């Protein structure tokens, strides 16, 4: 496998020598995410410094795949970045373990590298932690093509700066991930999904109140007047919590959470809300192993990550709430609204709620999808980018035009 690393390093040095952009790509399932990807050989709206825009190469890392080391009793797995998430999770499942942050795949080709580069986490995030919380170490290539390792395969490690977590969610702008070590956790002995009829404000109140109690809540979702709650853990704990919370136990809970994680739930398809999608919420919602279609044209999907106790947000469109109130999805008809007015209203609402908003999916131009950074933060970010990637070749503009 060293020959692949040598090939990647050669590609990096060649691109650096010619100031040519290099787009790092695994399974390509998250091409929709971030500022618009410049397609090979075709210049797009994103420009970066003095790049020759006609020269954009894709660095395909999907071939660098496989589990490097897995010791279930150490709770650590190390795998190559091209490893498919599905394969990784299947391997863990054999040993009764899981990626506790439930990364969304958005397609069967999704890889570990893309998962860490985007840093996205699923329904269990509020209780278990995010992708970055489980990253223990990385092996990577920087902008000079140097093969570097940071962190390690142990739970606690404070030697040197935490480059592994810095790489998580950096959208491939700092280097090429080669291998990632992750902390894994046992799958819960029991899971149970409950449903409550509630108004939005009541649901936000309930989720925050419950989160302050020692209850085994592992996921929450509010949509269309229904609060869905997942309990995970030892059977006696789950039973006791059910007795305490009440609510109706639903069948097909696993499929429901999969549809939230993979955004195959009707909400994300941008279809009309209301009671008609009730059946879908239940046992018919499993599209998890099929490719995600993305939302229907002319719908913008916004992701607002905010303080969990924020009252219902008054914004156009329709909302779905996750993470105990800390994550609000907003789907808006892009066609019949003033895009700029919506954008600034959404950004303002998120800032006011102590958080940030990103345009998660859009068929529009997809520039400036991430929340703007304060000038002092952008200055530091640019410095970091210049240090890791002096020629600015890695995914230029994908995160911010300046980096």
């Amino acid at each position, binding site marked *: 496998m060293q020959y692949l690393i040598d090939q990647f390093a050669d590609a990096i040095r060649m691109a650096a020598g010619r100031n040519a952009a290099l787009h790092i790509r695994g399974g390509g399932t998250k091409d929709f995410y971030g500022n618009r990807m410049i397609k090979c050989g075709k210049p797009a709206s994103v420009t970066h410094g003095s790049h020759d825009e006609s020269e954009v190469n894709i660095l395909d890392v999907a071939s660098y795949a496989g589990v490097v080391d897995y010791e279930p009793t150490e709770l650590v797995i190390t795998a190559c970045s091209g490893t498919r998430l599905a394969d990784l999770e299947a391997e863990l499942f054999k040993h009764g373990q899981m990626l506790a942050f439930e990364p969304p795949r958005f397609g069967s080709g999704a890889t570990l590298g893309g998962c860490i580069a985007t840093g996205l986490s699923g329904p269990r995030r509020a209780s278990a932690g995010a992708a970055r919380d489980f990253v223990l170490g990385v092996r990577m290539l920087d902008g000079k093509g140097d093969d570097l390792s940071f962190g390690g395969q142990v*739970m606690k490690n404070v030697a040197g*700066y*935490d480059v592994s977590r810095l790489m998580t969610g950096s959208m491939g702008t700092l280097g090429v991930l080669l291998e990632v070590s992750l902390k894994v956790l046992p799958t819960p002995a029991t899971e149970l999904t409950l449903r409550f009829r509630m108004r939005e404000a009541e649901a936000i109140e309930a989720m925050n109140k419950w989160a*302050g109690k*020692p209850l085994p809540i592992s996921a929450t979702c509010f949509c269309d007047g229904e609060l869905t709650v997942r309990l995970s853990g030892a059977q006696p*704990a789950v039973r006791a*919590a059910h007795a305490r919370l009440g609510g109706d136990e639903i069948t097909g809970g696993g499929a429901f959470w999969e549809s939230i994680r993979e955004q195959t739930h009707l909400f994300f398809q941008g279809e009309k809300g209301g009671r008609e999608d009730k059946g879908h919420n239940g046992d018919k919602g499993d599209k998890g192993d099929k490719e995600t279609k993305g939302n229907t044209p002319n719908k913008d999907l916004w992701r607002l990550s905010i303080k969990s106790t924020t009252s219902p947000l008054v914004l156009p469109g329709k909302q779905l709430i996750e993470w105990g109130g800390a994550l609000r999805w907003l789907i808006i008809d892009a066609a019949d609204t003033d895009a700029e007015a919506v954008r600034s209203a959404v950004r303002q609402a998120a800032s006011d709620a102590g*958080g*940030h908003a990103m345009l998660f999916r859009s068929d529009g131009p997809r520039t400036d999808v991430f929340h703007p950074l304060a000038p002092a933060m952008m200055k530091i970010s640019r*410095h970091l980018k210049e240090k890791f990637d002096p020629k600015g070749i890695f995914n230029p503009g994908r995160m911010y035009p300046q980096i």
Partner: protein
Amino acid sequence: MNSFELAARLRTVLPSNSVLHDTEDLKPYECDGLSAYRQLPMIVALPQTEEEVVEVLRICHASKTPVVARGAGTGLSGGALPHPKGVLLSLAKLKRILKIDPFARTAQVQPGVRNLAISEAAAPYGLYYAPDPSSQIACSIGGNVAENSGGVHCLKYGLTVHNILKLRVITIDGEILEVGGEGLDAPGYDLLALMTGSEGMLGVVTEVTVKLTPRPEKAQVVMAAFNDIRKAGNAVANVIAAGIIPAGMEMMDKITTQAVEEYVHAGYNLDAAAILLCESDGTTEEVAEEIERIGAIMNRSGATEIKASRDEAERLRFWAGRKAAFPAAGRVSPDYYCMDGTIPRKRLADVLSGIEALSSKYGLRCMNVFHAGDGNLHPLILYDANRPGELALAEEFGAQILQMCIKAGGTITGEHGVGIEKIDQMCSQFEASELEIFHAIKAAFDPEELLNPGKAVPALRRCAEHGAMHVHRGEEKFPELPRF
């Protein structure tokens, strides 16, 4: 600018009694928890507000004066060791709890607030701050952020980096960074993670927003004795393999058990080669089931004695021994040197027998306490600083242990930080190209290297002079050569 001029400048922005310049006033700041290293600073500055911190940093930046930030001074790696030509910036006066938000489960505090004080303030709401380093009575949250402190419960509840949401950070040029946010993530690079554990090299933290965790309904601990350290290590693996994540899992070797038993009378088995403490927390029902399972696993793993705490008093007594390991070392020996390596747990028996061999080689006793759940080993090397040469021997012994941890696939520091103490071992753990990245990160924040210079990341020149052997991915360079 000489020290008198600088003191005068600082007194223009701080009250006169917040700038210390006389040798006798500087004395209390000459070391942190690693007292083998001592150095008087030129000046101590004690700002009381964020604005004062900004002003102090601006003055230091303008006059190119090194700045070493200090919290409670309990650190064990010399991270807060003063610079002879620098300002020691104590954050001890920024000690207000600004806000507890029980509904959102957060606390907004200044950096000088003690770790335990946060949990005490949150207690009326049934909440607490989860990371609990052994120094939690005294250590400050700002210092915890600088070191990414852990504790005995971090396998289940995480380290500092997992339990903070937001920081206010002042850069060396006096700019304010708001890092993280009130949501669960923030846009851009994860500077919250980068700042955590950065040992005061990148900026000065003036405010921390931490997550609070609901206090579990119940906690209970199983104490198991083993006649063989290998069996104890296997017992830990068997607990994990059964799908249990204990709230805490600690191991002590025989010499430690004997030292602490004499001190706290916890009721430990004195003949055991290893004592394992395994805690379960959660709802009453959950704990009852888990404790039963843990007991059965210990039994199957060959424990010679198993006791589950019958009440809260007994639980605390079982823990008292483990928590008293450091003071007990201080009782049985005039001095001790605490190491902090982390290893993959499966290598425990090998590393412990390696330590035993080194112990006879150097003629120094060593007590071993181990955060068994997460592989973090704290060998306490016992020595007498009054005997000529013994400190140097202890340090050499310690350095050998760290080399062994790197070779076992681990790291030189799990939670105490590199500071000044392990700066040479950094040359062994990292390649020059990796150290260059660390220097580049430092330069992105502090190009003139004024913040805590000489700590955490060794200059490449130092590594060359030190001649450290780089051990990479378990492979030594020149493996054919014998090493002692």
